[in-house]
């Protein structure tokens, strides 16, 4: 199955259902919420992986009873839920500015998301109502904690990260149920998704910690002492990134976060293999290997992951 084409086809089909005045808004959404720097980049090209937008379709490869219609309906619900969550988060995070047209678009996305999941399950009530609420609460709690430079534990980190991504689960779980999978395999799907979303989240939080700090707060700071570090900021209130960087590097927290990502991917790969979701399993295995290598390099050279990310375009251009 060509997952990328499906993702773009689903978005195009959704755009065609919108009132004319919202169609342009929808086609420019990724640019409007600053997920990409240019217009007309299809959703399939925005993320490095296919799991983020097409998770149900990837699990479906192991579900012989899942029809093409079921898979497309589940992927539609999933994709609209995830795009809505991304866009909303970027507005809440003030990385993008909302406007009335955009809010109308989000409303249409949620209606279509709920319609799709209810069509799939035959239920009247959409599980996304609760998932969306849990996600937004977690985002707001995280923002408050990180903004205040609270010292936080790795357990806080995992729990909030998981709650933030609550919308990543319902469509794949619903698809499993309608495709006849039992509770044991359904729970396995849940664990695979947990592994993947946390692995991706931890990796991102290492790569972006300095940018996150500049925008308000970063897990790397809170996990390595929090308030004590922020107290070292100069009197003008602007964070002293050089001092913070030294402290974060000395704490070794970035290597720990990357190691956490590694183990999450490992768990996801093993369970996905048991379920027969081979593509997903080998993808998670690749992530595990990458995370292990980065954890090792980060451990021997603090700040390696951030520098590698910042030099990646240069390396591609100059070293090939």
């Amino acid at each position, binding site marked *: 199955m060509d997952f990328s084409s499906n993702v773009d086809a689903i978005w195009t089909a959704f755009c065609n259902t919108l009132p004319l005045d919202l169609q342009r808004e929808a086609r420019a959404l990724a640019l409007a919420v600053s*997920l*990409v*720097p*240019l217009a007309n*980049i299809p959703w399939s*090209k*925005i*993320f*490095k*992986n296919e799991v*983020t937008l097409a998770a149900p379709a990837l699990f479906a490869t192991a579900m012989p009873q899942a029809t093409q219609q079921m898979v497309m309906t589940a992927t539609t619900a999933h994709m609209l839920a*995830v795009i809505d*969550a*991304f866009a*909303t*988060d*970027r507005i809440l995070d003030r990385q993008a500015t909302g406007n009335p047209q955009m809010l109308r678009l989000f409303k249409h996305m949620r209606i279509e998301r709920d319609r799709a999941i209810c069509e799939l399950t035959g239920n009247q009530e959409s599980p996304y109502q609760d998932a969306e609420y849990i*996600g937004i609460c977690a*985002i707001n709690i995280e923002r408050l904690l990180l903004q205040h430079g609270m010292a936080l534990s790795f357990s806080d980190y995992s729990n909030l990260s998981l709650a*933030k*991504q609550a919308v*990543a689960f319902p469509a794949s779980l619903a698809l499993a149920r309608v495709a006849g999978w039992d509770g044991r395999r359904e729970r396995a799907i849940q664990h695979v998704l947990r592994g993947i*979303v946390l692995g*991706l*989240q931890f*990796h*991102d*939080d290492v*790569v*972006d910690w300095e940018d996150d700090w500049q925008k308000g707060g970063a897990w790397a700071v809170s996990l390595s002492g929090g308030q004590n570090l922020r107290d070292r900021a100069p009197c003008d209130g602007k964070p002293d990134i050089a001092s913070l*960087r030294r402290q974060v*590097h000395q704490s070794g927290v970035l290597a720990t976060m990357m190691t956490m990502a590694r183990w999450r991917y490992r768990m996801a790969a093993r369970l996905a293999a048991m379920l027969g979701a081979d593509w997903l399993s080998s993808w998670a295995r690749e992530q595990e290997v990458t995370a292990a290598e980065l954890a090792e*390099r980060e451990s021997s*050279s*603090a*700040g*390696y992951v951030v*520098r*590698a*990310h*910042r*030099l*990646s*375009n*240069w*390396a*591609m*251009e*100059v*070293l090939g």
Partner: protein
Amino acid sequence: MQTAQDTDPHAQLRTLYMSLLTRQEHFDEFKQLLSMYPAAPGEDETEPPAAAEVRQKLNQRIREWTGTPFAGLSSSQIQMWRAIVVDERINVALSPWKESNGY
């Protein structure tokens, strides 16, 4: 005796890359010196004296970091590198924007 790393420009760049990856202070200084270099050449396409001074300093520091007789970066090379490393302009459209789902 000179090794390939001493004479091959590509190997020298790779050595520089590894130095920047493994040493935060090298990375910071590299970026700082690149940012001090003017983004565009002078009106007559000649390199202003202040810019030449920054370029010489950068090349000297690269030789010290890598321990190689680094041939030195030209004005146009530094401008390209500045665009990529400091301004993050080149190839951003081709690079996946986020590593993952960070909402």
